[in-house]
């Protein structure tokens, strides 16, 4: 146990003891699931089912089921992809970068955030797969595998290929990192398990963790190594995703500001999503002592910072469009603001630039209701950001004869809903069967003298 100055506000309140931590977290895994959980899973499965229906037709009949056309070759598919990848940024940021910066407040949120990251990246990876016209060959042709096509290789110049590497690397590292953290906790559950099935399953999952000093030492080392590996990935994934657009010639895409702007946006939306989920989990699982207002405030501050970066990026884009003197570029940006899709643009501006500024007020950033609403608003805004970038840039590019509009079909919507179903199903399963808070780490920040202060508020 670490010694922390007693003037610091405790990160875990209500004088929880180490035993309380184990009890509070494990009980969720061990007890029968509450009715609310059942309902939530049912709702998620319904979404999954509806999405599965539309997905079936998308794959069976073709991409034509979507609202795309000759001018707009990407719309909801890639919007959703970038949106989910963005959301998948927070978890690793919290666990890796904040670990390196020794931000201990991350400890009670990193588990769920990382889980969210993994599920979000899964949802994200789903879109580049299904958006392919020929999924049945595309899913492995994009990998640089030795093949029977002679010397045919992938095109290493293509940003889409970089995406494949970026996403798969990020997903692998995040998954390993997450799982590594889970091992001591699985061992705890294993040790407490009363029924045989749980014992066997959690026993297998905990990889024979003994809790010995050597285990812990290795655990710490690997955590640090993975944190070191994951940190550049947090920055690189969205940078590479932004290259899909930045390396193109389309006005509105062809912008060098995209990498930092996308990364900031990703963290922005990722934290918002973490907040959305955490506020619910905290409430349902009564984890108020672990995820305190302090946590929420800190996350809101990150949202405020990244939101402001995003806002500056938007303004910079406009400035550059004007300053560049490129007529097509200038038109593209004016068209964003005042063209047929201006509603999407102003939705984005309101949600992403104006709404996070409310977090300057302490009252708002420490209010649960306000935080919850704003966290959703931010993600709506971030979805529209990607929509604006993709669709409004494509719909009126260089040759006016091809200008067109996009409107989504049931299948665009359904396939998006599918990922929601997938995401929430996975998240609820996680919340039931996995410890939602990293017990092992949280125990390290329980104040050594809590026993004497028991009962203190």
């Amino acid at each position, binding site marked *: 146990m670490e010694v922390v100055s007693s003037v610091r506000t405790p990160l875990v309140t209500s004088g929880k003891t180490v035993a309380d931590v184990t009890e509070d977290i494990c009980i969720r895994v061990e007890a029968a699931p509450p009715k609310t959980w059942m309902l939530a899973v049912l709702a998620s499965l319904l979404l999954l089912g509806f999405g599965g229906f539309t997905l079936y037709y998308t794959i069976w009949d*073709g*991409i*034509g089921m979507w609202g795309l056309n000759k001018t707009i070759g990407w719309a909801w598919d890639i919007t959703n992809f970038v949106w989910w990848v963005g959301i998948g940024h927070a978890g690793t940021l919290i666990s890796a970068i904040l670990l390196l910066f020794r931000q201990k407040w991350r400890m009670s949120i990193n588990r769920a955030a990382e889980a969210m990251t993994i599920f979000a990246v899964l949802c994200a990876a789903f879109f580049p797969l299904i*958006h392919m016209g020929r999924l049945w060959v595309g899913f492995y042709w994009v990998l640089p595998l030795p093949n029977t096509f002679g010397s045919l290789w992938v*095109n290493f110049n293509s940003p*889409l290929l970089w995406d494949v590497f970026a996403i798969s690397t990020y997903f692998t590292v995040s998954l390993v990192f997450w799982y590594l953290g889970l091992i001591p906790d699985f061992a705890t559950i294993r040790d407490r398990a009363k029924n045989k099935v749980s014992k066997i399953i959690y026993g297998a999952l905990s990889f024979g963790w003994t809790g010995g000093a050597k285990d812990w030492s290795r655990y710490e080392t690997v955590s640090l190594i993975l944190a070191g590996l994951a940190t550049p990935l947090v920055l690189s994934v969205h940078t590479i995703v932004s290259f899909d657009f930045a390396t*193109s010639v*389309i006005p509105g895409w062809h912008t060098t500001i995209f990498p930092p702007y996308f990364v900031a946006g990703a963290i922005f939306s990722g934290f918002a999503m973490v907040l959305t989920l955490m506020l619910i989990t905290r409430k349902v699982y009564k984890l108020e002592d672990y995820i305190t207002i302090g946590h929420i405030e800190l996350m809101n501050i990150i949202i405020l910072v990244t939101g402001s970066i995003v806002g500056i990026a938007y303004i910079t884009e406009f400035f550059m469009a004007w300053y560049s003197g490129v007529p097509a570029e200038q038109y593209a940006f*004016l068209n964003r603001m005042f063209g047929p899709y201006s509603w999407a643009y102003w939705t984005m501006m309101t949600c992403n630039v104006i709404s996070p500024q409310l977090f300057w007020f302490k009252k708002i950033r420490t209010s649960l209701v306000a935080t919850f609403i704003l966290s959703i608003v931010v993600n709506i805004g971030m979805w529209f950001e990607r929509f604006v970038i993709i669709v409004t840039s494509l719909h009126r590019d260089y*040759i006016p004869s091809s200008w067109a509009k996009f409107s989504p079909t049931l299948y665009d919507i359904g396939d998006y809903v599918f990922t929601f179903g997938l995401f929430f199903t996975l998240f609820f399963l996680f919340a039931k069967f996995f410890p939602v808070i990293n017990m092992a780490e949280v125990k390290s920040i329980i104040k050594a003298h809590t026993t004497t202060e028991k009962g203190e508020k």
Partner: protein
Amino acid sequence: MEKNKKLYWKGIEQLNKEPEFEKFLNKEFPEYLPINGGKEENSGSSRRDFLKLMGFSVAAASLAACEAPVRKAIPYLNKPVEVNPGIPNYYASTYVNGGDYCSVVVKTREGRPIKVDGNKLSKVSGGGTLPQVQASVLSLYDQERLPAPSIGGEKSTWEEIDNQIKTKLASISAKGGKIAIVSKTILSPTTLKVIEEFKENYPETDLVIYDPISSSGMLKANQLTFGQRLLPNYSFDKADVIVSFSADFLGTWINPVKFSSDFTKTRKLDDKKKTMSRLYAFESNLSLTGANADYRVAVRASKEGLLVSNLYNELLKKAGLTTIRTSSVEELPAIQKAANDLWKAKGKSLVVSGSNDENVQLIVNKINDLLGNYGKTLDITAPAKFRQGNEGEMDSFISQLSAGRVNGVIFLGCNPVYDHPKGAEIKAGLEKAELSVSTSDRKDETAALTGYIAPDHHYLESWNDAEPVAGSYSLTQPVISPLFNTRQAGESLLKWTGNDQTYYDYLMAIWRSGLYANQSDVLDFQTFWDKTLHDGVYTPPMGESTDETDVTSESTVDIQTAINNISKNYKAENSENELVLYEKIAVGDGTHANNPWLQEMPDPISKACWDNYLTVSQSWAEANGVKMVEAKSKLGVLTIDGQEIKVPILVQPGQAEGTFGLAVGYGRTSAGKVGNGIGINAYPFIQKNNNYYSLARFEGIQVVATDEIYEIAQTQTHHTFMGRAVIQEANLSEYQKDPAAGRESIHIATSEALARELGLEKGEVPPGALTLWKGHEYPNHHWAMAIDLNSCTGCGSCTIACQAENNVPVVGKQEVINRREMHWIRIDRYYSSDAPKDDRLGLEVPSSNPEVTFMPMLCQQCNNAPCETVCPVAATTHSTEGLNQMTYNRCIGTRYCANNCPYKVRRFNWFKYHDNKQFDTNLPMNNDLGKMVLNPDVTVRSRGVMEKCTFCVQRIQAGKLEAKKEGRRPTDDDINTACASACPTGGIVFGDLKDPNSEVAKLLKFKEEEKFQKVEEPRAYNVLEEINVKPNIWYFTKIRNKDEKLA
């Protein structure tokens, strides 16, 4: 049984019980078999061999498990000499549809015609084609053609039908009953002979000829003027000033393919020729001709006669002759201007009118006479026969039919129930005829009512001849044996006459006794015949010339009556709504309604397909709350003769105020699966107006916009070019001063240091001077294209030619509405806007009478192709000949390339368009018969892959091989793309930049320097030069012949 003690040993080793042998005795497999991983020295790769074998046998077993469909593949017992698999044969033939004529060369593969191109030897059609001609090959493989003759709707045999018809004809003839042969214009002299023979047998026979779009008025006027019912032969190439009164001679009027090519000859500019013709168009609907005019005046149709008489008056003034009395019109300044130009170009000018009013045509004749154009730009000594319809005869036939006085009627491949204004009367009257026969190829609106259908061949299955212009002959030869149990209409007539000759023999006999006998160059008939058949066209040597008709000497024309009639019938002011019917370039008179290529071809002007619609002016639309956004429009109610018809509304810039346009050729009910139920039939709206059928109605029209939203399948929904350098244009006077006039100078700003390094003074460099691209080496060929915006009339032949050549799927109306048409080459049509260049929203609104520019847009085959870099699987790559290649097999359909294409020319297979019931209008890919039209050299693309223009790479390859066989470089003659060869005006020129003799290199004045390519032609520009994608297509600036604007 006693145990046999006899031991059979396997070898001396066993007998000797050698230890080496004993060791392996009980092992199942000898050690030397290659199972043990190749431990033995001499079997180093045996394990691999084993794996290979195993892999092979697994693969073979699984392949054998897949059931291979049994397809009939029957080898030739005796191979026809000329048919070589994989090698196309070309045959000259002639496309005729009523009075529409085009001399063609048909490409066949393995005995199947798959492509039709223009015959360059023809002087009548000029070597180009129009969309209908290009698409005609698909009609051959139409499943809905009748497979056999039918009697009363029941399938029958030719013997049966011949017997019955002959019996009936005989009985009618015996009682002196009347027989009528109804036909559209007949260009074939042989068919006319056959009919004459038929008449001899059945003397009470009348030949009634009509044209769906009648030129009767013009024929009549010429009869009055020249004493001959003829059409003059126009030479637009000799005219410096052309004035057209609603004659869409570039689109649908008389012989547009030749007129287009002649007209554009006068519009081409180069270093030597810096002048061009000037075209005035006065019309209500924006036609292709109006769109190509230098001065277009949108006028009410009710003024047309007055405009013509005013023009006459102005010219009379100039000639110093007595003027006529005519009411003045507000467009007088435009008329005066036209008159000035015409007068200056006396003898080198042409005035044409599309009016069916003989009075108007009489004055037009007078005008041309006054201008001395006869014998120069109009030829009446070799008159044209494209339109022969006689309204009077048709009317009397109809009234007789209604009165039950026609006993027998034979419809010679025509469909008057549908395409005659009095179709309903014919329909009712037909019941009264004892005998009714149709030779239609399908059970169309008329044939469905006749007792007998004796289906005719498709022209690609027929023998025939044609004389479209007096003294110019051509032959139609079959290029495939009849697909169905059909028979040439002429042969049917012969049979019913009692002549058992085949039509082919009959035709030959006529040629032998006629044209062959009249010439002396070729001494045996077979040579003469073969030569004619090979060339497709034949012009007899100029011997005796037809008697000169002197126009001026003709004084029987009562011009004053005509003037009076005009003053009476036309109005200088009309406050009523006017309806002006027109033909669309693609669907035309509706005969080809079941051809999906034509149905899906966007109209050159409105860019709409799969429909007809009411074109309304912008101001009417504004006043009536109709706004077209993304092709979403309103349904209107057109009230005509008290009849209310729902019809979609299309806002058409250039539509004359107070007029509404509506295309004929739609609303078919028994054309077939594709054509049925599309749009409304406008033929019944053609009204008898002072003795002639008029396409325009001056009164009694009401149009109300409803609130019902209607989506029109439009391929282009943004109509202006937003002041962008995509379109670069100039005025002729500017061009004469500076050939680079209108060119936008595009530069990239950069640091001055960098500019100095490049040897430039300012910090501005041309795009391409700074580049990340290393460039490509083109060791042998470098394919490129030059497109002259001045030559492109926008007709759309290239689109259909490309569709036929490259197996481009038809996607149907809904998918066009979804903006997913597949055409590899499209023609972008841009309207000018009145707004200043920086008015972003104002630029979106076209002028009320806009200047129009057509721009063929296809894959630009960029040298620095943005599509190539982004494909993750390298499915689109650069060839060593400058082509941007698409490997369908490798494509996984991410659509990234299409997104990154600045020209938006890539097309994605959103669905499976072949063998898919959902796309059953895609005839060429959804039934076995239709599939015969597919080009076997081009893959039919599967669902989920991207496709685009390949510069007809299969033709390049074929041309290269041909040249290689002869050990030389391919030349322009060996290789041409489908679009370029279909273009009637030579607006698209394709070739090899590495060949200094190629036309494209000459046109562009291409210089190859180290690392740099230089195009020195000042008019040539690349679209989107600024993004440095370095296209291999250059466009030549659009030059208009307008007066210099006073500054």
